[in-house]
């Protein structure tokens, strides 16, 4: 067997080795291509050959080396691919098992309603007054009642039984006193006053499904030179459609509040109202009170009722939330059962 034949035989031999599934590729490389490998061995033994023969054997040796090298790389790649596949297979999970879910906090449903009201009125250019200085929850009798045209002994004080701390200091029964605190400071040379005042209010009530000694109110007030009841109607329609949906309608009924004249009670339609809806089919739900600010209130806050007119309204987030979501017990809002709170997540947006 000539050296050339021997070298060519190595290729065959290596190919056969590498074809084995669990072959040690590195061992094959050492065997054939290593410093003490078979090819080197053959090449070392050609010192007795002629130049031409050396040249030929050398060439064949390189060809065989390259060929085996190629085969080895090929095999290595194949083995790596197989190993990866095996690893991935081993790492396979049951993707239907539950994930590790970070818990998100939720906004209280009353806060959501108030946020919605605030956004709406910010868009209409209103200020929001909710700081402790202009909107204190512990108020004076003067601001809560007298400035709202409810002198001591006024029969309407019965309508809102009050938690007093001293004869002059009380828990506010409404967010209306914020009006006076803001009106007396407003600079009308800079334009009309448009404000809402969200916050907690308190009444001397026994807690049950529909009464709560603590609830929320959003008072609204606009004072300017040509503010009309038609503006009030339009404003209330816009906020009701924001909260209940744009196909809902409102109606105004006469009512009485000491701080407004005329005063109205506002109903919103329970269902959507279309051109085909017959008036007698509309179910009306009482939602809020409103009116044109009483001249006495304006006067007490230093505003000339001959020159300025104003409207005011009081929104009840608790009542809205009860209507909107069918919450039957107002106490749910203040007991903070997490199973209750967590139902009102961002899905509502």
């Amino acid at each position, binding site marked *: 067997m000539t050296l050339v034949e021997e070298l060519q035989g190595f290729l065959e031999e290596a190919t056969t080795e590498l074809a084995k599934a669990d072959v040690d590729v590195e061992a094959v490389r050492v065997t054939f291509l290593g410093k003490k490998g078979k090819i080197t061995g053959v090449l070392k033994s050609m010192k007795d050959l002629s130049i031409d023969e050396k040249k030929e054997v050398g060439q064949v040796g390189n060809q065989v080396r390259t060929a085996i090298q190629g085969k080895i790389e090929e095999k290595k790649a194949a083995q790596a691919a197989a190993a990866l596949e095996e690893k991935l297979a081993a790492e396979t999970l049951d993707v239907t098992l539950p994930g*590790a*879910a*970070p*818990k*998100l*906090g939720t*906004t*209280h449903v*009353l*806060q959501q309603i108030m946020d919605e009201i605030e956004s709406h*009125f*910010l868009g*209409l*250019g*209103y200020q*929001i007054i909710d*700081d*402790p200085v202009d909107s*204190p*929850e*512990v108020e004076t009798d003067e601001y809560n009642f007298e400035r709202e045209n409810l002198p001591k*002994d006024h*029969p309407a004080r019965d309508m809102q039984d009050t*938690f*007093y*701390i*001293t004869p002059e200091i009380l*828990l506010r029964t409404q967010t209306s006193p914020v009006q006076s605190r803001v009106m007396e400071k407003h600079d009308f040379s800079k*334009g*009309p006053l*448009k404000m809402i005042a969200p916050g907690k209010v*308190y009444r*001397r009530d*026994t807690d049950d499904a529909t009464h709560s000694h*603590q609830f929320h109110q959003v008072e609204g007030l*606009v004072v*300017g*030179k040509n*503010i*009309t*009841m*038609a503006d009030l109607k*339009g*404003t209330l329609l816009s906020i009701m459609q924001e909260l209940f949906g744009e196909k809902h309608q409102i*109606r*105004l009924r*006469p*009512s*009485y509040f000491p701080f407004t*004249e*005329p*005063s109205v009670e506002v109903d919103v339609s329970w269902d959507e109202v279309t051109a085909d809806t017959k008036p007698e089919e509309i179910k009306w739900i009482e939602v809020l009170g409103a009116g*044109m600010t009483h001249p006495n209130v304006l006067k007490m806050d230093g505003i000339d009722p001959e020159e300025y007119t104003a409207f005011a309204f009081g929104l009840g987030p608790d009542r809205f939330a009860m209507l909107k979501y069918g919450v039957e017990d107002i106490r749910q809002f*203040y*007991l*903070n*059962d*997490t*199973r209750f*709170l967590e139902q009102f997540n961002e899905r509502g947006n």
Partner: protein
Amino acid sequence: MKTNLKWLNDYLTPGLDLSEQAILDLAQQIELTAVEIEEVGQAAAKQDGLVVVRVDEVKDHPDSDHLHITQVFDGQEQIQVVTGAPNVAEGQLVILASVGSHIIDRESGEMVKIRKAKLRGEVSYGMLSALQEIGLPDAVCPEPIENGIYVFDEKAGVNPGDDALEVLGLKDPMVDTDLTPNRADLLSMRGMAYELAAMTNQQVQEQQVSEAPVSATQAVDQVTVTSASQSLATGVALSVINDLTVEKSPLALQRRLWTSGIKPTNNVLDAMQEQLLATGQPLAAFDLATLPDSNLTVRLAEEGEVLGQGDGEETIALRAGQDIVLASGSQVLALAGIQQDPNFAVSEKTRDVLLVAGQYNPSLIRQAARRHGLRSASSFRLERGIDRSNTQTALASAANCIALLANGKVAAGQALVGFNQEEQVTITMPLGRFNQVLGTSLTEDEILMLLRKLALDVSVDQGKLTAVIPGRRTDLRIPADLVEEVGRLYGYDNLPTALIDGQSTAGDLTGRQKKIRASRQIMQALGFDQAISYALMTPEKATAFNIGADHPVLALNYPMSSDRTTARQNLLSGLIDDVAYNVARSVKNMALYEQGRVFLNDNAATQPVEQEHLAAVLVGSIAESTWQPVVKEREVDFYAMKGRVESYLENIGIENVTFKAAKEHQNMHPGQTADIYAGSVYLGYVGQVHPEFLAKQKLPAIFAFELNLEEMIDVAKRDNAYQPISRYPQITRDLAILVDADLANQEVVDLIWQTAGQHLKTVSFFDLYTGQGTPENKKSLAYQLTYQDQNDTLVEEKVTKDFAKVQTALVEKFGAEIR
């Protein structure tokens, strides 16, 4: 007020349409134009088959000691009815609920059908009834049900076969209106007539009775009246009716009363009540012969005076100097406008009646009615405001009614005190004001037409409208009141819908409002649900978790329940109540926060300082997975809560935050609580609620914090300063030291920062070890220090030098052993 529309039609020309649909439409119109409606319908509701029958025969039931077998005649045939009524007698006209009729069951309030029945072997075709058994409330029935069935008076003019519901007035159409405090005029038939006339375009006929016989002696020769002060009553008028006979009222009057919610008694009082309903003028009747003195006085109660005689429960101790009384000589006859002494009341023996009509001070009446817990039809009307121009007319009319009904004679004239000529109320205003306020474009004619519907006397002169206000409309005093009248009669439905004209102002949140909103968002991102708890609690809870010093409690002077007496000074107490509520419902894991006011009161005479606070609680497991071993067993601990506070403060923009061990918070774990500072500003604290506190309520471990949001709003950054991320490499050094076990990490970190030189970027703590190999009372702490130069490549030697300084300082200051 319950208004009988059939009665109301006496006042109206041409009269209301009383068909069922017309009444429903009217009710709707009342709601949209005046006041809310409580109820519309008939007292009879859906009852039927009730007929007037004559009792022709009564026999005792052979097998019963209390049942009777009767034969009754319904106008067509004789019917056998078995009854247990003790008062049944031959010749009576009574009510039969015949077989197939429907009546309202007295006990259940349900409609039941009457069937043929056998009572101890005897067949009964129906049931003889009392008024209570056909839907009238006990409070308005003249006789108690124990007295038996209702028997028609012989003079009632009813006949066998008549529809009993009809003749009893129970089919009269009724409208029950709610009342707003201003519309006192709607507390009388007369006022209601004017209101409905305006709505339905009718004319009002005043109903005055004046045709009774006149007695020989004038009223002023029989009685006189004086008043201590005009401030007690603007007028009191007395009338006398002589020689009358007190007896039962005729059915026509009785049914008027019981449909209006008043129990008939006798003809004098019934006529008086009817006139009270008709005119709204409160009246009181006394037996003239029983009065010790014919001079009556209106004055304030004196010390020790009582209403009533003896010392039983029937007497009322009067409030001296505050209760208005009506007295005869020294004898108190009545707490004016509220309650009479029954000893001077009209009885069957009464022959001469004194009738009193007063205009007592509304404010004093209101206080007295509240004080004594007595509210009468009279006091209610006096409080709200009566038609003072009509008192004498109403009294005259009532006296005549009584005389006619009770066969008496009216003494001419009235004894009077007060009634000084009151000025006529007029309102003058620019005509343009109506459209200016309402946003309408009504013409002068339209405005006048609307106001005239209310029977106001209106005129216009040079663009100014003048309206003369009748006495019954005590609510109309200023131009805005007339604007309301025009608005509601025009119909609020017809108002245009507009949105404020003129310059539009920009609405924006203040910096404070933005921070508070951001604060809520961060808390929610950290996994806390927003809670809103009650701000009123017990005094103990109100101060249980205060930040800083306690303030005197802010207590209600008349709380509703012992649980809610005091305004909170911290939010945590409320959140712990929420935790307890959840735990009681088997909720185990909770993350709740609340943002709201606390009330710090240092001077009871002024309003307290109100601060916004932020508080949170963390309970149970904070694991994100229910089954993966690594994250499953994550019970909440101090560091979980502290980490959340740190994350919150970082995000809201608070810098230089430090935590200091705090042992002095009464209801917090002394070893697991830290006060939180931003520089030198005290913000609040974080820690575990004291295990003893929790054990009392059987609550699991609660980790909590409470922060003063006001301080945070003040110190929080309001901008995000951008710094380019350094392109130069970072170099890190690990530092492990053995120090005394009670040395706080904060002290080590502070010293590292103080001595590290300018290139130190971060210090991160990564190991605490106290186990095997650490000496007693020692602990091993490990930190990684990261160095970086913003502008240049940092050289190893520089870092090594800086790091060495830190090591030296730790050794020198804390005796640390570098490991």
